[in-house]
Every structure is written in C-alpha cells, then in structure tokens.
C-alpha cells in the first residue's frame, strides 16, 4: 500500500496500526481522521478512547471533537493514562484497598499531588537529615523528598518493589566510587519505607500508589475483563513519551480491541524524567498488524531542512551528510557581550518581525533552557513597550513568589498570631500596599513602620492612634481603608476554628477584592488567590481529613511549606494562553511538548550548559531506574555523555522541525548569572558556521 504521503507495510487490512514519523508529517492529523472515520462508521463514541501523555497534547482532539460541524456525539474520552488510572482506582477502590494494605479500607482514598506527597514525606526526611544520614549529598531536604517520591513512582512504573531501589542505584554507582553515596541510597530507602507506611495508614495515594493500585486492579480477572471490554477502539498519540508500564498495558490491550492506532514520533521521547521510553514505544510496531511511515514535512522550509541536515551531521547521526555548500541555512546568530543586550536585540527583532513584516505575534516563540522570572519580566517589559502581546509558560514558579499570594499569606500571618510568625516589616508594607487601593510604596512603608507591632498585644495599631501628622501623610481615605482591614483581621483572628483556605476565601471576597481595595478589579490576583485557596484546601483535605488536628495548626503547617517555596503554583498555561495571539516565551522542553509549529523561533543563551546538563539528582536516576537498564551495570561518565548528546540532538532537531521559517540564536558572552557561556549547543553552531560562514551580528568574524 502506498498512501498519499507515506509508506505502508503490513497486513492488507490491518486491525492495529502504528503510524510513525518525525514532527510535522501529519501523524496526529491522521489519527484524528481515523477517529472520525470510526465515528462515521458507527463506532459508539463511548467505545473509543484516545490516550495522550499530557494535557497539551489533547488539544487537537478536543478542538476536533468540539467543533459544531460534527453531528450528535457521545463522549470520546481523551485521557492520560495517569488520569485514567486515578479514576479507576477512585471508582474501584473497594476492590483493592484492603488487599493493597491500606488501613480502614472501607473509608475513601486521598489522592496526593507531587507537592503534598513531598510534604507528607518531609518529617521523615528532616529526621534523617538531622541524623546526618544524607551528609554525603549536598541537596536540600525538599530535593531529597522530591527525589524519593520520584523513586517510588519509578519503581511502580518498573513493576518492582520500591525497596529494591537502593540496590538498583548502588549497582549503577559501582564499587569504586565513594561509599558515602551508597549510604545515602540506603537512607533514602528507609525514608521511602517509613513514608509508605504512613501513606498506607492514612490512605494517602501518591502517584506510585495510584499506579500500584491500578496494576493490582488489572490483575483482578473481573476488572480486567471489564476494563479491556469497555472500549473497542483505541488511539494512543505520542507512545514515545509514555513509560514502559503503559507500553505493557497497550500491548495487553491490543488483542481485545477491534481497532487501535498508535502514533510514534521519531526523535521524540523528551519526558525522560517522567519515564518516557521511546525505544519501547517504537517496539510496539511489532505488536501491530501494519506500520505507516510518514516523512513529508508540512512545515519545515528548505532552509530549515538544510539546517536539520547540518545539525544531524554535527551530532554524527548515522547516514547524515552536511548541507551542500552555499545552502541558505535559515538561521541568524547574534553575539552580545552582556545579557541585557541580548534581550534588547530579541525585543527589537520581534518588533521588526511584527510591525514591519506583519508576522502575527503567536507565530513567534522565545525559547531558553530555563525561563527565569528575570528573563520573563525584562523581555516582557520590553515587548510591552513595543505594544507586542506575550504570554509565558511558568511551570514551576513557587506560590510564595506571586505577589498576590505573598500579600494574602502575610495578612494571614497577621491574623494568626498563634502561629508565632512575625512577617518582616517590608513584607507587611508590601502586603498593605497591594491590599489597599491608593497606597503607594512610600506611604505603605511608612504605614507599616508606624502601625506594625510584631509580638505586641495588638499586631496592628489603629489608625487613630498614630500622630495627626502621620495620618495626614498617609491620607484619611487610606486610613479608613486600613482601619477596616485591621478590624476585619482582628475579627477573623477571633474565629479560631477556621480552615486557612476558608479564611483566604473570606478575606478575598469580603475585604481585599471589595471596592477601595487592591484586588477589586485584578484578574491576575483573582487567579493567584484562587490557586492558593485550592492548594490550601487540597493540603488540608488530602493530608488531614482523617486526623483530628486543629485547623489552626494545619494552617500553620501550610503557611510554613509555602514560605519554604515547596508549593508551586498549579498554574498551567490554559487554552487562553495557548491560543492568544501573543509571543510565547517558554523553556525549550515545554515548547516541544506543546506540539505546535511557529514561523519564527528565538533561542536564547545558546552558550548555556543548561541546554545539555541534566539536573543534579543524586538520589535518583532517570536512565538507571528504567526497565532498559540492566540491573547491576555501572553508569559511567561516557554513558552520561552519550545520553546527554542524544537528548540535545532530540531537542535541537525537535525545535527545528517545529519552525516554519527562521531561527534566531542569541548568545551573550556572560550569561544571565554573569558566567561565561561555552556550552555544547554553541559548539555545534560554531561547527555549522565554519562549514557555512555567515556574518554574525555583534562580531566581525565568527569566533572560531
């Protein structure tokens, strides 16, 4: 069979098929077409399941299914395997709870997020740290908790007992490296064990227990039959981003299905930290009756094709050749001595593209290995000055760094003197400034200075108790508002049994979003405080609903972990952000998983080692804790280099494939942190520039 743009091999009339190809060749389009063909053929929508590895990858399906041009419809589920697993465990909990070892299994489960899991583990980690059990590694207790939570999840995905994790890590560490690390692995194992017992006692289900319970359910013949029988048609998009356990699930599922389409992206597999197993994804081809290979890109221009060739050649990819001499590679490289100059250059270029060349802002993405707040802010400000809309993706910004959240937390601390927290005066000034309309920073600082009495009987003094001169400086209107705020906090403080999330809600609704107060007409503050409320509620409900702990104490614990920066804002870019006509700023990795092409990309900090280096995670290991790594084999430095090179190639080629027209590379001699930048991505482009010399903005000649 030779389809329009692809090569097909396999059975004449396949029941199951894998479609493969790089980004931009129409794989997801083919999957959507397949979905609608099935619906037109009369397949009941409830019998069709579409699985994707993460939410952003579901958008094309939702868009197609929510269009009005398709007639009446039942629900085609578009899910992640984790979402599905969690739902199944929630519904079928009575069938597994007892067998899985949970105490009081007749009561319901509490699902933990990554953050609440880390918190549940925190006490165990702190004790071990105090005992010096983690002296060999130089990471924070939060990082330790995070890595142990990761390990439990990896064990669940590998289908092994979590207690084997220290052995796996020790085997890969080898006998010749310092023994102290092995002791840290063992300490992590003990913490994992204590935490697991705690979870079982209070029916707390972190990711690992969700997966383990789901696996357990699948071993029950009745459930298995019902689960596999509930759908007749399956589409799995991006199998390369799924983990080994999901691949096994798919493999077991295939024989039960009337039809299945698996979509595999060559060069993908970015979610290594989440267990992505691209090799396993591709291996599913052997379980399918046909394989369709698509190769003709719909997006990439000849100049970018040539750049792809160059990049492949630089990374020594098999069968690669450099682009012919004289090729017009669709990139520009600009060198700057200082970081702010690079940001100016980006803003100017974007200005030119949008205002002179008519390129829509949403067709431009600014990408960097990490998107720091400083970069987001400074570039955002410059784009604002030029009238160019922009959105940014901030996957892991701590809640405490959001000004609206800080304000609410500071006011909460003032209303809860029993917490024993005494916010610094500067925080109180900032909170007052944000909370009270018409109060500028200078007068807010003055006000805080005269009214704030940390540790006093009255934490805040009434406005009429300050000197008339000061009252006049602050102004009476502001003074009235301040007094009302103060009264509200005093009254709230008297209502002792209030949960913190309820306190936040009331304070938001009754006080700081009322007319005359700072959040009255501030959607961003509404969003942030809504997240804070939700996060505090989840914290309370998931961790403490079965424990009789005073709400005040729960509130204090919540306050503490937010202040430590442990809780990230839950914010993920919504469709509003995704679809806004705005320049999109994101870490490269986030952009890749957004699965969209744009006309123009800017790559910043191309000299940064961040394009290359893995996070330092001494207690876990994404490659070793995987079914592909032979137990006992030592992870060597050259393994590290090979894997990092592979990943860098994936990232770079993936970005190029997601570009339609041109890439601008920005480099500053000194990076954002003031260090000299000479990372491997820079070396790749230096090689390319040697083969294809072109003027480099900011330099007379290329710097080799």
């Amino acid at each position: 069979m030779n389809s329009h743009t692809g090569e097909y091999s396999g059975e004449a009339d396949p029941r199951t098929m894998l479609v493969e190809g790089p980004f931009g060749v129409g794989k997801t389009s083919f999957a959507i077409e397949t979905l609608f063909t099935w619906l037109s053929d009369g397949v009941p929508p409830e019998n069709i399941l579409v699985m994707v590895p993460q939410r952003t990858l579901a958008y094309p399906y939702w868009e197609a299914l929510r269009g009005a041009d398709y007639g009446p419809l039942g629900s085609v589920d578009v899910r992640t395997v984790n979402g599905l697993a969690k739902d199944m465990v929630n519904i079928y909990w009575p069938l597994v709870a007892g067998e899985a070892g949970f105490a009081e299994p007749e009561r319901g489960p509490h699902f933990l997020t990554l953050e609440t899991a880390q918190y549940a583990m925190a006490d165990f980690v702190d004790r071990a740290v105090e005992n010096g059990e983690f002296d060999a590694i130089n990471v924070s207790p939060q990082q330790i908790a995070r890595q142990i939570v990761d390990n439990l999840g990896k064990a669940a995905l590998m289908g092994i007992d979590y207690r084997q994790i220290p052995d796996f890590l020790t085997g890969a560490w080898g006998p010749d490296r310092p023994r102290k690390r092995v002791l840290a692995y063992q300490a992590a194992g003990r913490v994992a064990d204590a935490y697991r017992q705690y979870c079982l006692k209070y029916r707390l289900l972190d990711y690992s227990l969700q997966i383990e319970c789901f696996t357990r359910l699948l071993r029950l013949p009745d459930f298995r039959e019902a689960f596999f029988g509930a759908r007749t048609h399956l589409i799995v998009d991006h199998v390369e981003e799924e983990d080994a356990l999901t691949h096994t699930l798919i493999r077991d599922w295939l024989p039960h299905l009337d039809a299945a389409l698996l979509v595999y992206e060559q060069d993908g597999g970015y979610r290594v930290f989440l267990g992505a197993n691209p090799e396993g994804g591709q291996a599913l081809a052997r379980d399918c009756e046909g394989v369709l290979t698509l190769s003709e890109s719909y997006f990439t221009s000849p100049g970018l094709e040539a750049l792809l060739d160059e990049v492949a050649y630089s990374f020594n990819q098999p069968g690669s050749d450099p682009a012919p001499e004289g090729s017009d590679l669709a990139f520009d490289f600009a060198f700057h001595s200082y970081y702010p100059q690079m940001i100016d250059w980006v803003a100017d270029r974007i200005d030119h593209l949008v205002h002179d060349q008519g390129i829509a802002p949403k067709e431009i993405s600014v990408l960097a290995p990490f998107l720091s707040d400083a970069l987001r802010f400074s570039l955002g400000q410059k784009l604002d000055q030029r009238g160019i809309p922009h959105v940014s993706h901030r996957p892991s910004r701590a809640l405490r760094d959001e000004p609206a959240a800080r304000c609410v937390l500071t006011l909460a601390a003032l209303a809860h003197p029993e917490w024993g927290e005494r916010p610094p005066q500067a925080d109180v000034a900032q909170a007052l400034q944000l909370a009270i309309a018409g109060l500028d920073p200078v007068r807010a600082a003055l006000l805080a200075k005269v009214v704030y009495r940390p540790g006093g009987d009255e934490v805040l003094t009434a406005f009429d108790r300050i000197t008339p001169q000061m009252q006049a400086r602050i102004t009476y209107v502001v003074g009235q508002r301040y007094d009302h705020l103060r009264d509200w906090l005093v009254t709230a403080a008297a209502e002792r049994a209030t949960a913190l999330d309820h306190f936040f809600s009331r304070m938001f609704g009754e006080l700081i979003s009322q007319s005359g107060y700072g959040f009255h007409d501030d959607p961003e503050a509404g969003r942030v405080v809504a997240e804070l409320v939700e996060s505090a509620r989840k914290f309370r409900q998931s961790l403490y609903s079965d424990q009789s702990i005073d709400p005040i104490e729960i509130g204090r614990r919540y306050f503490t972990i937010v202040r430590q920066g442990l809780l990230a804002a839950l914010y993920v870019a919504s469709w509003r952000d995704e679809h806004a006509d705005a320049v999109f700023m994101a870490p490269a990795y986030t952009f890749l998983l957004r699965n969209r092409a744009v006309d123009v990309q800017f790559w910043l900090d191309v000299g940064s080692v961040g394009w290359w280096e893995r996070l330092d995670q001494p207690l876990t290991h994404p490659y070793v804790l995987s079914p592909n790594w032979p137990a006992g084999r030592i992870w060597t430095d050259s393994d590290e280099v090979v894997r990092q090179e592979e990943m860098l190639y994936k990232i770079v080629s993936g970005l190029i494939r997601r570009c339609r027209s041109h890439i601008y590379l920005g480099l500053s001699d000194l990076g954002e942190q003031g260090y000299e930048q000479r990372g491997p991505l820079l070396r790749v482009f230096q090689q390319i520039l040697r083969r294809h010399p072109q003027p480099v903005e900011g330099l007379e000649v290329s710097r080799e």
Partner: protein
Amino acid sequence: MTPSGPFAHLDGERRVIDSSQDSMVRPGQLPPLFQFSQNSLQDYADCRRRFQLRFIEGLRWPAARSEPIEEHEQFVNHGVDFHLLVQRHLLGIPIEKLAPVENPLAEWWDAYLHYPPPDLPTTLRLPEVQLSTPLAGYRLMAKFDLLAIDPGERAVIVDWKTSRKRPPRDQVLNRLQTHVYPYVLAEAGTHLFGRPIAPEQINLIYWFAAAPTDPEILPYSADRHAENRAYLEGLIGEILTIDDEIWPLVEDEFHCRYCEYRSLCDRGVRAGSLDEIDAAEEESDWDFEWDDVEEIAF
C-alpha cells in the same frame, strides 16, 4: 489495493491539521474549546454578567459562594461521595463492599437501596455518561448521572439530588437542566438507543435523597422538544450577539448573594446563607465544576 477495515481511509488524501493556524482566542468571544452545558446556560439565565465573567473572561474569583463555607464544603463533598457510591454500585461492585458508615451518606444510601427511582429500564444502565449535539453553531453538552435504557423502547435520565430539602416542582421545571437533558438525549442518544429516540420515549427523573419516595418524574414530548429547541437556540443566539463591554448585571440581587463575583460587581460583602438558598439552586451550585469552563477533567 483498498482495505476495508478500520483503516480504510488510509488511501485517501492526507489532511493536515496545524492547530496553531486556527482557533485563536479573541477578546470578548467564547473560547475555541467551549461547549454549552446546563451550567453555563443556567448562569446566563441567572445573570448575563456572571456568564461573561465565568465563560468569556474565564475569571477565577475565589470568594465564598455561600456561608458558612464549612457547611457548604461538606455539602459539596457529600454530594460527590454519594454520586461516586451510586456509580460504584451501578458498575457492579458488590454491595457488601459499599456500605457507608457515616451520615448523611449512610441515610442516603439506605434511601437509594430501599426507594430507588421507580420503573427504570433494565437493559442498559450507564452511569456518568456524556452526550453532545450541535446547536446554533456550538455544541450543547449534557453529563448524565444515569441513563437507563431499553433500546428501541424507552430511555430514562436519572439525576441524583442531594440538596437538604426537596425543591418544589415549579423550581425544578424552571431549571435549565430540565430543558437541556432530555433535549440532548433525544438528539444525541441514537447510538445508545439503537435507533432515533422519539421524545415520548424519554423520561427525566429527579431523585431526591431528602425525599426518596417523592421523585419528580418528567415525561418528555415532541412539543416540549420543539419548545426546548427554540428556547435553547434563542438563548445561545442571544449570547452570541451581545457585544457590550460589560454584560448586564442581574436586577434581582438575590442571585448576587450566592455569586462569587459580588465584590467585583459591588453587589455586597458577605456570601448569602446556605439556609436561605433555594434547594434547586443549592444543587446546581455544587454541580458546577470549573472543568466546565476549561477542559474536561483530565
């Protein structure tokens, strides 16, 4: 060769969807993934400004909807727990594994077992089903607690209500849910029914945990279906034509007492008391999920 199975379309022309090319969000418009539901239409019917804030602007505003919040939260949790319990039962989990111990769940469960909705079709029992149908250029979606169907013969929609009081009939009849549910089933339930469903073959039952022996049974008819279509189309049409910067605020400020946007609209300070809210409204309050605004639950 031309295959005939699930991949018969393989030989056809490939059509590429570049999702970055379409569905851009423009200020003041419904977002591209939006579909109408009983919740969003009820919001519109209650207050146009609320619809605008919630669905057009996607504004999250974390004020309390009713007081005391603690009771409101418990009420929501119990409602969710009861729906889950019934879902488990309908999916075949043995009854001895389900018995809840705490009230009000235990009481409701008892009521459900002893006084289930009367005379339900037995062939298909489908809990938590979602159907949608195009209407006025958008999709109208309904998520049913239970569809009980004897294919080709009759279909019953059951909605479990856990409000503290049974609402009077006229309140129930006026809810958008009463219009949306049978309409969507009649339009989009063919594949479940085995053939097109005549409106007369549909019943809608509201079952009240607070009054299990007194469910509200609402037969459907072709006339009502035609009225519903006109009514729902009219509502959506109206929504699509409003181009005010600020959509009209409801005149009857009673709604504002139970609306989280009251501070934004300068319509009061403290949330209304749970004791004074209409039972029907109380129910819809918990039924609302933020997911209706954005994507479906993931």
